[in-house]
């Protein structure tokens, strides 16, 4: 019996804490608030033109991180997944930034 239990632990499921419904609901509320924020800035703050591009992308990135951290369980998974995502993310974002710097300096 004990060995069977041990085997199940090896499957990797038992170590996962169960995320509560409440935590998922709070995550959604946070995401909705951020959405309201971006739309409001875009619709009512069009005089802040240059600022709004950066803010919109910043808020989108915060939302993406919230989705990855809570909904995609990175908070509870092995840190390896977070590192992998960070490597892909940093690589991609640095390419975006370098490309635009290259463009803007010509």
């Amino acid at each position, binding site marked *: 019996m004990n060995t069977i239990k041990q085997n199940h632990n090896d499957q990797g499921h038992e170590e996962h804490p*169960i*995320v509560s*419904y409440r935590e998922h609901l709070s995550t*959604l509320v946070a995401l909705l608030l951020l959405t309201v924020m*971006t739309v409001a800035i875009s619709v009512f703050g069009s005089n802040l033109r240059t600022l*709004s591009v950066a803010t*919109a992308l910043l808020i989108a990135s915060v939302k993406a991180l919230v*989705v990855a951290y809570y909904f995609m369980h990175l908070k509870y998974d092995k840190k390896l997944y977070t590192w992998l995502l960070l490597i892909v993310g940093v690589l991609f974002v640095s*390419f975006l930034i370098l490309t635009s710097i290259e463009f803007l300096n010509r």
Partner: protein
Amino acid sequence: MEHSSGFSLPNSGHNRDAEASKMGMWLFLFTELLLFGGLFVVYMVYRLLNHEAFLLSSFELNVTMGTFNTVVLLVSSMTVAMSITAIQKGNAALSIRLLFVTLGAAVVFMVVKYFEWSAKIHHGLFPGQLVFDNLPKGEGLFFFLYFFMTGLHALHIIIGAVLIAVVIYRTRKGLITAEKYTLTENAGLYWHLVDLIWIYLFPLFYLIH
């Protein structure tokens, strides 16, 4: 391997590996991120080259519909996450119900998308239509990218919905249980990715005026 020489491992008779499945799913998601990433680079470069045209064209899109769809996807992301909690607690019935809500959200998203696209096509803005063909270069690029990127995203919504339907079927059959729910988790990861891409598509096409 029929000629295995009596070599056997003392295991429990099944060879599932939840961790490896999840790792496989994440690696696949990284390729998806880079696929859309490439498109975002194209968007960025064309936007830098055609700043005013992209600004003007973005006013053609319906912010209300876009916002509505954003909310629909965020809610569906939560219901998928909750369905994993439900199956972990052994509540298959609730898990199925929450997955059906997600499926419903996918349908709502596609219906809204249908109305959005029909309006654009009605105005002749689909690549190959008369109005589109006579657009200045910048506006043309905007609408080409709009249709290609939201179209590819919509394709992902359809694939995700099929995946969730499979999860519902297998949960109902008792093949997915509190001890064995890797498929629910992986379908959830895919669905969250679809949400994640929309989180960027929405402000880039609808909001940045």
